[in-house]
C-alpha cells in the first residue's frame, strides 16, 4: 500500500530562538528546524503499516528552501521519497492557503492513506488536515490511536480518541488519517537509514508546478494578519520551601487558601 505523510519542519521548541520578523511573520531562517513531533508519529505509523502490508511511504512538505535538511531526517526513518513545495510567495500563508497548496500537491499522487500529525508545535492550529480532506473529498478520520487498513475490502478502521475512550471509525480508502502520539514512539534512524537517505529523491516544486489558482494562495491571499505580538509577562519569583514534609504541607495549603483556590 502507498501512504503519503504530510511533514512540516518547525522551529526546535528547545531552541528558544523563535522570533517574528518586521512583517510579523516567523523568521524561519533564524532557528534550527526539526520534524514536527506529531508528524514523526505519523511517519512511524506509516512505516509500521508498510512493514505489514508492503508498499511505500512518501513525504510531502510545504516549507522554506532549507527544508530538505529536515526532510532527510524523516527519509532516514525509512520513507522512500519526498516532495518539497517551496516558493517565496508562500511565506505568510494562512491555514486555508496551506491546505490548498498541500491538497494540490497531493492530488496527482497515488495513495491509499494520507497521514498528517494532529497539530504542529509552532502555530499549533491543527485545522489544516480537516481542510485538506474537505478540499480533496477524502474521508476524514482524526485523532487516531490505532489504524487498521483492510487491503482486501479497501477500507480503513481507526480508533479515534474520545473524551471517554475511543470511537471506532470506518471508511473506504483512500482516506486522510490524523495521527497522534498514542500510535507509538517514533524510531531513531539507523546509520544505514541515514546513509540511504542521502541518495533518496526529494522533488522540489514551485507554485507554478502546483495546480492551484495563485490568487488564492500565499502571503498576499492571507485571510488573517498578526497585528501585534509580545512576550508573555514573566511569572513572579519562585518561593522555595525546604522545611520537612509536615511543615511544607502546611505552607502549601495556606498558600492555596491565600490564592482562594481552596
Amino acid at each position, binding site marked *: 500500500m502507498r501512504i503519503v505523510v504530510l511533514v512540516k519542519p518547525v*522551529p526546535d*521548541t528547545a531552541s528558544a530562538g523563535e*522570533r517574528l520578523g518586521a512583517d510579523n511573520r*516567523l523568521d524561519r531562517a533564524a532557528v534550527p528546524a526539526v520534524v514536527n*513531533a*506529531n508528524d514523526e508519529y505519523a511517519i512511524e505509523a506509516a512505516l509500521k503499516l508498510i512493514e505489514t502490508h508492503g508498499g511505500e511511504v512518501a513525504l510531502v512538505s510545504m516549507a522554506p528552501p532549507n527544508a530538505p535538511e529536515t526532510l532527510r531526517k524523516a527519509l532516514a526513518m525509512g520513507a522512500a521519497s519526498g516532495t518539497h513545495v517551496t516558493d517565496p510567495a508562500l511565506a505568510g500563508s*494562512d*491555514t*486555508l492557503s496551506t*491546505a490548498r497548496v498541500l491538497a494540490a500537491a497531493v492530488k496527482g499522487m497515488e495513495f491509499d492513506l494520507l497521514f498528517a500529525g494532529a497539530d504542529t508545535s509552532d502555530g*499549533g*492550529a491543527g*485545522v489544516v488536515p*480537516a481542510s485538506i*480532506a474537505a478540499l480533496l*473529498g*477524502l*474521508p*476524514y*478520520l*482524526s485523532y487516531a*490511536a490505532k489504524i487498521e487498513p483492510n487491503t482486501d475490502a479497501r477500507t480503513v478502521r481507526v480508533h*479515534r*480518541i474520545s*473524551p*471517554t*475512550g475511543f*470511537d*471506532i*471509525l*470506518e*471508511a473506504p480508502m483512500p482516506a486522510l488519517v490524523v495521527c*497522534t*502520539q498514542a500510535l507509538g514512539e517514533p524510531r531513531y534512524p539507523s546509520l544505514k537509514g541515514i546513509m540511504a537517505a542521502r541518495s533518496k529523491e526529494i522533488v522540489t516544486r514551485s507554485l507554478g508546478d502546483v495546480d492551484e489558482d495563485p490568487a488564492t494562495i500565499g502571503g498576499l491571499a492571507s*485571510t*488573517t*494578519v*498578526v*497585528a501585534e*505580538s509580545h*512576550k*508573555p509577562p514573566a*511569572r513572579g519569583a*519562585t*518561593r*522555595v*520551601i525546604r522545611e*520537612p*514534609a509536615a511543615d511544607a*504541607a*502546611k*505552607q*502549601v*495549603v495556606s*498558600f*492555596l*487558601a491565600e*490564592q482562594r*483556590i*481552596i
Partner: protein
Amino acid sequence: MPGLWVVGQAAADGSLAHISAEVATIARTLGGDAGDDVTGVVVAADPKRAADELAAYVPRVLAVPEPAAADHAWATIAAERIAALARQHEPDHILLGADPEGRDMAGVLSVLLEWGVLVNATGISWTEGGPSVQMSVFGGKLITTSRFTGGHGIVTIRPNVATAEEASTAGTVEAVSVEGDLALPTVRVVDRVTEAGAAAPIEEARVIVAGGRGIGGPDGFKIVEELAAELGGAVGATRAAVDSGWINYSQQIGQTGKIVKPQLYLALGISGAIQHKVGMQTAETIVAVNRDPDAPIAEFADLLVVGDLFEVAPAILAELRARSG
C-alpha cells in the same frame, strides 16, 4: 441576521458541551460590544436538549436535526449543514470551541465558506468592526494578536478562557432543517468504546494534579489521584509517565498532548522540561514538589517544595482533609 454565530456541540448524552457554554458567554459579550446579533447553532441527531441549554446563553438558537450524526463522525457533517445555513443567513463570524471536534469542524468550514481561521484563542476582543484574537504561539514564548483581513472569519476558543454565565433572559429555539445531500464523504462510527477509568477532560479542569517521572510507577499515581479528588480536580501526566505506561495518553499535558490553563497546577515529580512546560505554563498558579531544587520547573513555579513527593504529597493531602474537616 448578520452577526456572530456560536456552534453548540452536543455531548454524548445530548447535553450541551461545557466548552460551548463558555464560547457562547464570550460571543454574547462580544456581540454586546459589536452591537451584533448572536445566534447559536446546534447540529445533532437530536439537537433539542443541547439547543435548549444553549438558549440560556444566547438570544436565539437554531436547532438542526441531522440523522446521519447518530452513527457518523460529527464534525464534517455538521460543518456542511452550518455552511449551508451560513450561506443563507450570512453571519459575519463563527465561534467554536478549540477542542478536537471544534478544530475538525473549523478546518472543514474554512474550506466550505472560504473564510480564514484564527485558532486556540486565549483572549478575544472587538476592535475596528471585527474580532481581535489573542493566541499563544511557539510553545507560549510569544503572545500574538491577530485579525481577519476581510469581514468574515472562524475563531476557535480554548477551554477556561471565560467562565460560562447564563444570560439574564433565556433565548428562543427555532427548529431548522437543512435539505440536500451531504457532498463530503461521511465516516461511519462502528462502535463507541468507553474505557475504564476514563477521566473528565483535563482541558476543562480548574485544578490539575500531575505526575511525572518522579512518580516512579503506576502505583505512584494513587496519591496523585487522591490529591486531585480532594481538590476537585483532574489528573495529568508528563510524556515520560505516559510512555512508561503508567497512565493513559488522554491525560498527557505538553507538546504532543494537551494544552491546559487551570487555576492551579500541582506538579509532582515533574522536572519541567520544555515539552511539558508548553502545555501548562499559562496555569494561574503553579505549585511543584521536586527533590531537585535545580529542576527547570524551579524557574517557573510560583511555589516549589524541595523534598520527596511521597512524603510531601500525603502531608498536603492530610492537611487539606484536616482543613475541610
